[in-house]
């Protein structure tokens, strides 16, 4: 077997590593995140409404204050659901070269994850009802790793997700552990 010369780290300018720019997610994901955020908070707030009303009926004087507190919480939640998704969207990006898939995400705590494509075990496409409504899909990449065994790229355009999956399966997929 031919043992090729391995360059030390100092001259680690591997020829196949051409840095490309990060690709953004599909911009419809902002809407998706807003809707799912509103639904999540909505359920929570509505279930909070029951004890609020109950307490208000039992002690009518507190009703005003409880209602004010509830409304304040609700408007804060709505504001957050409108404010946060576009920022999260801007922080998200992914790029693929011949060997590595890289994602970056997070606003306050930023992280970049790099997945050597030959370590890819399998690729899933996830489409919930909301995602189907917006024509989006999430790509989930599984490795044999422990802590970040799967990497999820949300909010891809459905056809793009399929294309990406086929591409990844084609170039990746050396199962050995």
């Amino acid at each position: 077997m031919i043992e090729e010369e391995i360059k030390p780290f100092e001259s680690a300018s591997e020829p196949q590593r051409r840095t490309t720019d990060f690709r953004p997610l599909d911009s419809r994901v902002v809407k998706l995140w807003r809707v799912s955020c509103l639904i999540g908070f909505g359920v929570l707030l509505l279930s909070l409404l029951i004890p609020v009303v109950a307490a208000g009926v039992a002690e009518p004087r507190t009703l005003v204050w409880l209602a004010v507190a509830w409304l304040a919480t609700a408007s804060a939640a709505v504001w957050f659901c409108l404010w946060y998704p576009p920022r999260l969207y801007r922080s998200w990006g992914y790029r693929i070269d011949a060997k590595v898939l890289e994602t970056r995400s997070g606003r306050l705590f930023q992280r970049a994850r790099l997945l050597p494509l030959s370590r890819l075990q399998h690729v899933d496409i996830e489409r919930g009802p909301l995602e189907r409504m917006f024509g989006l899909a999430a790509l989930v990449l599984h490795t044999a790793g422990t802590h970040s065994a799967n990497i999820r790229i949300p909010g891809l355009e459905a056809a793009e997700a399929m294309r990406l999956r086929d591409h990844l399966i084609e170039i990746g997929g050396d199962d050995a552990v």
Partner: protein
Amino acid sequence: MQSESLAASVFEGRLHPLTIAFSLLKAARGIIPAMSLLFFGNKVFGFMLLMAVVASTVATALARYFTFTYRIEGNELITQHGILERKQRSIPLERIQEIRVEQGVLHRVFDVVDAKIETGGGGGAEASLSVLSRSEVERLRRAVFERAARVRGEAGAGQGEERVAVAPGRVIIRRLGLKDLALLGLTTNHLISALALAGAIWNFAEDLLHDSFYKRAQETLYRESSRFFMRDAAPAVALALAVALAVILIGMIFSTAIAIIRFYGFTLSLSGEDLHRRYGLLTRRSSSLPRRRIQVLKIEEKLFRRLFGLATLRADTSGDHRDKEDDDSGRDVLLPITRRSAVDPLLRIFFPDFDAGPTGGAEVAGGVEWRRVSRLAVRRGAIKGAVVCALAAAILFAANWRMAALWPLALTPLVYFVSVANYRNLGYMLSGRYFCARRGWAGRSTHVVPIDKIQAVEVHQSPLDRRLGLATLSVDTAGQAYTGGGPRINNLPIDEAREIAAALAHRASATRYIGDRRSRIENG
């Protein structure tokens, strides 16, 4: 050709006849409590119940022995048992990580063993063959690993890879004598062993002694000690010291005894590609793992061991499941104790293509060497420590309003020295095939990861990291049950972290497994 004859030959086997005796013995432990029914409950009913239990146990044991078979068919090891409902399990040969063997005292009398077949999946043993004769296990092990090697050889045949079919003789890498084991025991954390011992004695005594005895002992002790302490403080201090010393001494004796019982006759050897371990005074255990299956190796230098220049080696294969039992049975360590200076030559045995510099030295000229993180780490560590000290002082002061409560502030200079020491020990080493990371000052741990075992790389930045231009780099591998997670290095300059991450990911992606652990770099 040899491979053809191997493929043609049929491998089949059955359990040892003593299986019946051992299963009955195991079941007997469950039956004995039921016997009490005979003496206390309704005698006729109790007797019938007991007979029913005994009969069903005997039937199960017989059925297990007579129906249990295993065979190798194609590339799978198949176990099968059951009369009405036939249970069959197929394990692909190339997924078998190791065949672990345990031999209790009674097993040794009859020269039989329990064999457990481990695969990469979490959740413990895939199949348990209990009991087999020793020679049968050897036969099984040889059959499994030779065939598995052949399967891999075929997979790599297209690449022109040649493989040695038959493993050469066994080479002993390390044997631990009583002196080593005593050292191992003495450097364990004694307080914990002493407490465990005290707990065990307490439990034991509680069963034997009557409650009133405790009460009397407690009263006497209290009376005597208060009279004793009234006179003078000095004897009290002396007594307390003596008690502490006694506890530590007992702890030392106890942990040495445990070390000897657990690891007596520890032998680590290499035959072909497989590392074998054999150890144990009462229960003899042996296991083997192919060295190319090592995903992460951890060189652990805990406080006491570090002081004496000793280290423990742990290794993870791809299973990620850890049992409490693993720690008690010593499965979690590859080599319980070794001189730190002997680790580097050992690394070259575990990883024949190890190409990084010495792992022990601080700075070594020539070749690949340790690199440090940003100097900002010192400032950061010191500030963090100082804040903790200040908070502790504030809380204590708030509690009793005395100047003396501010003593944690005096620790602040110490905090600085600790962060300098931590900084000196935090670092990484990246060679063509290996990535090493090291952290910790009082207790230091070094992770060695073959780059072809890297599953993912992550660069993480907290808001504070961003302000300082730093980042944390972590490397993910399969199976981190015994090494406590893969390498993680914080306080790296962000550009350097990105550069390393990209280099690691690209090199990992370019390597594949072909037959033996020899990786190949492709230019694409």
